């Protein structure tokens, strides 16, 4: 029995080693491709993207907002463990902070290819204009990056001297939670404060961003954890899984509820200017794909997977559910960014100058269109690969998940999880 287990472990280890090499190679390739594509974009200008006036933000900003969500979510998981005493989440604290750090780094980097003049990026520091939500966001991203780095260091150190840093960890958690909420709110306000875009201009924007951040961030942690368990033979306690799964369910429900609130408000009010964007997204509209991705692929399906006892007992299926929930959140980001831009507030012919010229076409567009080009897809994939690289490296270097003991999980872990406080925090 032991012998076969050991043998299979050895095989898996060997496979994992080769797998890791392949994984690293793939990531390196994708990152290099993305970077190369960005260099190409630098030589051509943003005309090689699918963006034009009207839909002037696209895959880069969508991905940026998505990464911000991932980062805030990871930290919220980590901090919740301390702040709300959800001790069953503790095993995931370090992973949460790692994904937070990796995600916020990628979020910050994601802005760069979107800039027309990345060479002038230091103007953000040299000439900050404090009225701009974008400057607040730059500030909070920078602060968050520093915070996550410090937190990760502290958590890492704690593993060596578990007792000494407990207070620091708690303090950091108390700072981390509101910082994460603020990071997400400010990113939401980039959109939500804009009177020119009725689709964005809702007070729901910040709560929605926070909720979807918790959803996507937790989902990322879950996916990484399952991957780690699968490939690195790491075992995450059952109770932790249950909490994570519950957190996913709750945040997904709240997220969809908030989006639905927005839909219903617009539908019932029936103001043409506000209906314009929604009509494109609802079934039948030209952007309905994002609707199906958000509500079915990223909504109903993961809910079924995460709530049906038979399915949720399978960690693989929970991971699939988490992954689909992330797809749903990404779809929501598309819906948000593009939906806010496709129908300009002044719906008058001939529309808006495209900023591009075709000799036999009008230079104006009434309803915006957007199809990301290979350049954007390549850069975005490169950025996802970079995120995965950061997490992989961090995971390897910092041993964010402890190797399972050879023996079954210690009983006190289970005791922690059954503590009433944990239940309360999540219901």
């Amino acid at each position, binding site marked *: 029995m032991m012998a076969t287990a050991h043998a299979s472990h050895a095989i898996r280890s060997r496979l994992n080693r080769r797998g890791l090499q392949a994984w690293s190679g793939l990531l390196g390739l994708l990152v290099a491709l993305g970077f190369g594509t960005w260099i190409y974009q630098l030589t051509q200008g943003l005309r090689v993207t699918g963006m034009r006036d009207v839909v002037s933000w696209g895959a880069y900003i969508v991905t940026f907002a998505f990464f911000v969500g991932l980062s805030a979510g990871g930290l919220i998981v980590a901090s919740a463990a301390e702040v709300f005493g959800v001790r069953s989440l503790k095993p995931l604290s370090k992973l949460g902070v790692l994904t937070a750090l990796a995600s916020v780094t990628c979020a910050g980097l994601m802005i760069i290819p979107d800039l027309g003049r990345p060479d002038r990026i230091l103007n953000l520091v040299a000439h900050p204009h404090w009225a701009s939500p974008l400057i607040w966001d730059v500030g909070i991203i920078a602060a968050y990056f520093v915070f996550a780095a410090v937190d990760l260091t502290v958590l890492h150190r704690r593993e060596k001297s578990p007792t000494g840093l407990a207070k620091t960890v708690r303090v950091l958690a108390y700072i981390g939670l509101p910082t994460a909420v603020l990071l997400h709110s400010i990113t939401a306000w980039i959109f939500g404060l804009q009177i020119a875009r009725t689709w964005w201009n809702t007070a729901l924007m910040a709560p929605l961003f926070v909720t979807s951040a918790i959803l996507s961030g937790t989902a990322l942690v879950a996916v990484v954890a399952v991957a780690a368990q699968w490939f690195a033979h790491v075992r995450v306690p059952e109770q932790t899984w249950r909490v994570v799964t519950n957190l996913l369910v709750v945040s997904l429900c709240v997220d969809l509820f908030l989006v639905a609130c927005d839909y219903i408000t617009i539908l019932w009010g029936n103001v043409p200017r506000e209906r314009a964007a929604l009509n494109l997204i609802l079934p039948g509209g030209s952007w309905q794909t994002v609707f199906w991705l958000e509500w079915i692929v990223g909504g109903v399906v993961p809910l079924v997977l995460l709530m049906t006892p038979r399915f949720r007992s399978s960690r693989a299926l929970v991971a699939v559910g988490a992954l689909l929930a992330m797809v749903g959140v990404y779809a929501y980001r598309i819906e948000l960014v593009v939906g806010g831009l496709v129908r300009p507030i002044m719906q008058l012919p*001939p529309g808006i100058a495209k900023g591009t*010229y*075709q*000799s*036999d*076409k*009008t*230079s*104006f567009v009434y309803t915006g269109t957007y199809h990301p080009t290979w350049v954007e897809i390549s850069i975005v994939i490169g950025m996802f690969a970079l995120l995965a690289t950061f997490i992989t490296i961090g995971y390897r270097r910092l041993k964010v998940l402890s190797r399972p003991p050879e023996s079954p999980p210690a009983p006190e872990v289970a005791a922690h999880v059954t503590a009433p406080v944990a239940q309360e925090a999540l219901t």
Partner: protein
Amino acid sequence: MVELRRRQFLGGMAIGAGALAAGPRLRFLLESEPAGDVAAAATTAAKRQVFRTGHSNNCDGACGHLIEVENGHPVMVKAAPWEDTAISGALAQKFNPRICLRGLSQIQNTYSPDRVKYPYRRVGERGSGKWERISWEEAASTIAQKFGEIQAKYGKPSVWIAPYTGSLALLEGVVGVGFRLASVIGASAGDFEGDNEGDSATPAGWNYVLVDPTNPDNGGGLFDGHEGTDFLNSKLIVLWANNVAETSIPDWRTIMDAKSKGAKLVVVDPRFTPTSAAADLWLPARPGSDTALIDGVINYLITHKAYDESYLRAYTVAPYLVHPQTKKLLRTTDIGLAGKDDYVLVDSSGQPRAAGAADPKSVQLLGTFDVGGLSAPTALQVLADAMAKYTPEHTAEITDLTAQQVTTLAALFATNHPVGIRAGFGLSHWYHGDLTMQALLTLQALGGNIGVHGGGVTTFAGGLTTTAFDLPGWWAPEGTTSFTVLEPMEACDAMLENKPYPVRAAWFMVDNYAQQMSDRNKVVKALKSLDFLVVSDYVMSATADLADIVLPACTYLEKTDLLSSNNFYLQYMPKVISPLWESKSDLDAVTLVAQEMGFGKYFDKTADDYLKDILHIGDPDADSNVAGLTWSQLTSGAPHLNTPTIPYVPFFDKSFPTKTGKIEFYVEMLVPFDQAVCDHKEPIEASPSNPLFGKYPLVFLSTHTRFRTHSQYSNLPWLKEINNGGQGFLEINPADARARGVKDGDVVRVYNDRGAMKVYARLTEGIKPGVVNCYQGGWDTVKVKHYIEGHPNNLTHQIANPTQAVVPNFRSNAAYFDCLVQVERAKG
């Protein structure tokens, strides 16, 4: 070298770009400040030369342009100022700077990739687009040789020179050097001064009523109108089939200023154009029913006695008796009245009097009088009788309006004076367009609105500028006889059927005959049948596509000329830049050919010297309108002519060059055509009474758009950017579209027995059901296609109205709009 003067004058004052933007300011600088100071101020700024020129294309605008030139390129076009004074120095008027989107696109036009850059000889089939570049010398000698051969074989008029309205400048285009060449070599030529493809019906009507075309003093027919600014004097402005807001954009300001002053604005148009949108009253009458609407108003005025009695007595034939049998105006000899032969009027006591002996204040206007055994009605009575059937209800029935709309319009005419009418050339695109103009003038005569400020019926203004010049001497220099006139409407028959004589060669100048002439399939067939075809153009037009030799022409910036059309100002056009590539002005091209043909002696002057001759500069016997003009005055600004009144009003002295000297709303010479008075006639084709209507139930209009001037500028990038990418479309009412299963943006086939075109459908409630419209002038060339297939002129016809022949200068007209089609969704 003289032509450089202007350049030196302005060029020497190159000033900083920043100071150049305001026209009036610039003028102030130029006129009042010593040149040295201005030049000094310029040392730190980029050097630019500034030229004032006139934009000579035929949109009616006759705008003045200020052109800034830097490093040999024109880099800025903007509206130029006008002189506040006449040639004589007398104060004239303030004339607003004029420009529009087309004028502002002229740099692009000049450097367009569609330009013809070099002379070419055809090497493939006609229309195959295969060319071989040749030298000007070779081109000129080939043309000379071919023309000589053909003239020797088929007679001198078998070569047809066709300088056209693509340019309204003096030395080229519609009054240009082509006519001089035709006279010199004995060729035929057309069209000239006013007689344009679709623009001669209303001028003919104008002559019926106001001019005696048989009198040699009138040169075969005149045409003029009120100066645009005269609408400021109108109480009611009626834009009859005239989309000023799109086609004569710079005139819009005057219309709006008049409206601000309280004038009411009426627009008659089956389409809800930007002009219609600005109207106080918009009347979408059925196309082709205009005469009936006018008749309804006339009937209202007569039955309500709302006409100007004293005006009618003094200045019109209203009181003149009409012979009941011959329908001619009654003569004293017809009734044996003593004295020398004269017309007959009836005095207050009912006694006939010779016109010369009657007291004009007391003659009878209405009634039928027994004179000399005849029961003779007055001309006004004849009119009244003919108009009696046009009750508001009957008029409404014919015009598709309501009786209320008819009486509203009539009441406006009855209660406002003066009334100014602007009638677009759209009215002229009808078989009976002449009749409509006759009716409008009749209506205006009743209201006392002719020859007064703020009145008149204006289609074109500025004819005076050409009558004041020595155009006969320009067209037929001493020692030559004037060319044989062959009109565009007659040319196809001459080419295809040798009627009235064979035409085997042609030279088109600024003329896109193969696309812009009606019944295009016939035109293309005729042109392909020619032995030799030369086309001078600055772009590779549909006509150039068919040529044997294509010659590169200049745009208005590359040559010296004069613009004196469409308003009452003289605009010298200096050569702003050197001709691009190997382009030459028509004057230079014609000179080369004439030299090859051995007629060089008639073409031995510079452009400036010709202008001096034509304008009588330095001639003490010069026409009063240009008397005293000096060369430096001409080249340093745009002065107003010495007109008797400013704004200019035709017949301001109420002296009419008719047989009677009166306004002849009773047109004696049209008795044989049953058209002595303006009784409505249905269109020759586009009428529900036409049996063809069952098969082709839609009236097909091919109007002008603001985005081009006929076929010029159709392919300019800026204008295409804002005009659907240059893609043509068919305006159709949603009701008509629904009936045919056509949705917005669908490809439709428009067809009749003459031809077909394919184009995108554009649904709009702005067009009357039963009417469709496709903007004409898009290109259908070998390289460029602005319609999916064909051109509106594939559908139009060449049926001429013989009535117009009584006015030699306006004897035939293409009735573009008098056209029926059917529309269906194109398959596939």
